[in-house]
């Protein structure tokens, strides 16, 4: 397939998907969309290990890998904090930002895309060398950002904020700063465009919103997310992580929101999703309970206080996942 036919094919593919989405818009609009946690606005920088740092407090967690070749950034935080974020990155490294990966389309992970894309930077290889930052995301993120419009028909996302490289393979790999980096698609988890990023040399895994230790699983069904997809993604991440001796340290996991975690923390969260899933299967599939009856049965009891929050309550979570267990999503 020539580059031209490939582009044409992808255009048709995108148009078809848009049509499908438009057709489903009525039913999708009723679905609950998860809201990310409140933003503290107090930016903090923490060295994780190896060449990797965490920038926290300005929306979703931002991860920076930096060394001789430049800077590799995962996610850009919430809108309105770009100046602080770019200044914080400059303190970590005076090298240009070469790559950006968006783990999903979640607002607190792409909010600084446009400002970062406007910086002098660019890929360190290929035809894009030195032109601008190479912004990578799973192709569904690119698609949704490029077609997204508000009720007045205006673009939601400025073109500069779009990823420049929408990958469609199950996995993308590259070497940067002497370190192998895996960008892996997690199908239908938080959404249909989720990526996790694994820095092999630094041994740091960035999960995006498929794992946040601040809340129950956030699932955006309108964008192709699913509870089972979240569970599968958590299991997949556990296949990658290796704990240091006695279940501590080793691979560090940077969640979409919350504190730097390791495998044991990920296990605790994954276990919760299994138990809640099994409870829901019994209540919804085996006993055929209504949504209200399911709420009364408290299938999340044990984690309600820890993970329920005003913007993404236990009830919202149950309302979101109920249809999936009925096979309606």
């Amino acid at each position, binding site marked *: 397939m020539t580059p031209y036919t490939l582009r044409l094919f992808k255009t048709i593919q995108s148009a078809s998907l848009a049509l499908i989405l438009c057709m489903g818009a009525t039913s999708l609009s009723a679905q609950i969309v998860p809201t990310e946690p409140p933003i503290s606005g107090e930016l903090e920088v923490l060295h994780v290990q190896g060449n990797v740092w965490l920038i926290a407090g300005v929306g979703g967690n931002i991860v920076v890998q930096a060394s001789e070749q430049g800077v590799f950034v995962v996610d850009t935080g919430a809108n309105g904090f770009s100046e602080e974020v770019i200044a914080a990155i400059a303190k970590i490294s005076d090298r240009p930002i070469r790559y950006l990966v968006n783990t999903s389309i979640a607002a607190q992970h792409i909010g600084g895309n446009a400002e970062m894309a406007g910086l002098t930077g660019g890929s360190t290889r290929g035809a894009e060398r030195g032109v601008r930052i190479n912004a990578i995301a799973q192709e569904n993120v690119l698609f949704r950002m490029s077609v997204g419009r508000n009720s007045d028909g205006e673009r939601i996302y400025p073109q500069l904020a779009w990823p420049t490289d929408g990958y469609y393979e199950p996995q993308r790999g590259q070497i940067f700063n002497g370190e192998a980096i895996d960008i892996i698609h997690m199908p239908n988890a938080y959404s249909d465009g989720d990526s996790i990023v694994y820095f092999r040399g630094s041994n740091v895994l960035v999960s995006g919103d498929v794992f946040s230790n601040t809340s129950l699983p956030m699932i955006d069904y309108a964008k192709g997310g699913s509870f089972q997809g979240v569970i599968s993604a958590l*299991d997949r991440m556990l296949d990658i992580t290796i704990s240091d001796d006695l*279940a*501590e340290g080793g691979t560090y996991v940077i969640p979409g929101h919350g504190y730097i975690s390791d495998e044991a923390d990920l296990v605790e969260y994954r276990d919760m999703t299994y138990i809640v899933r099994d409870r829901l299967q019994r209540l919804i599939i085996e006993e055929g309970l209504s949504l209200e009856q399911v709420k009364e049965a408290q299938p999340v009891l044990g984690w309600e206080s820890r993970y329920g929050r005003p913007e993404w309550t236990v009830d919202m979570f149950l309302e979101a996942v109920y249809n999936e267990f009925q096979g309606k999503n």
Partner: protein
Amino acid sequence: MIKRLFCLAILGQAFSVHAQEADIVGSWNQPAPGLSLGGVAALFGFIEDAIERADGPPVVDFLGIPLNEEALSRALAYDSALLGVPEHVCMRHPSQYSYWGPAQLRIAAQLDYNLDAISYTIGGTFRRADRTIWLDGRDHPSEYAPHTWAGFTTGHWENGTLITTTTHLKWGWIRRNGVPSSDQATVTTYYQRNGDVLTITWFVDDPHYLTDTYIKSVDFIVTPRGISTASFTVEAADTGSDVFSQCLNRAEIFRPELHYVPHYLPGENPFIGEWAEEIGVPVEATLGGAETAYPEYKEQLQE
């Protein structure tokens, strides 16, 4: 209120015995039958703690634990087969619990140029969740910093008692039969030395699982000849290993799928009532709650 009274009692006792810092550095062991230390061990009963220091407590025995309905839900979902899956098999005892379980402590001090202690390091709890106690006034880490089995601990001396605060704990347990402790728990610990006895009392506050402060105390006795770090086998499969902290994260049970989380669904825990029947108390007593921690509860049951 009960916490405040307990604290006053501890500090009052300490003040009457030692008005200054006591040296807690050294090797400490749990008093136990067969452990001959000049007869000191005989002074201690070895009843309440024996099961914690050996195979572990009975399942569904939560008597005396001020757990809330969320904690009870998790505790009843607990299936001990969980400890046989690779993801769990090597987990250490967390600081919410570790002094109660098997432990032989070696406490060391790091000194500044005035010979004042900057920190203590306490090693020797099950699988070595070694605890560093910072005495230099530093702050606790960022809310985004990693959580560990030992947690992050700061402390100070007060009337001969070392008082410490531990945060940044991992999810864990306060009893080794599934009573959970969250990653938001805080542990306040009091270390008192009285001659050859080190008494450690700790208070667990957990906003997600406890309705009241959970309080435990244990005694350790000085071990002049030091401790052996290979003195108990970590796992049966590790027999022959003389490395105290070694553990292989292997599967010890049959797993129907690669990722497997053993647990009981609500109402399906087969062990509810087993321990109650054995000790002759109503089932609800073994399900815990703050009221079961008080002496009056016994009278309530009799009524």
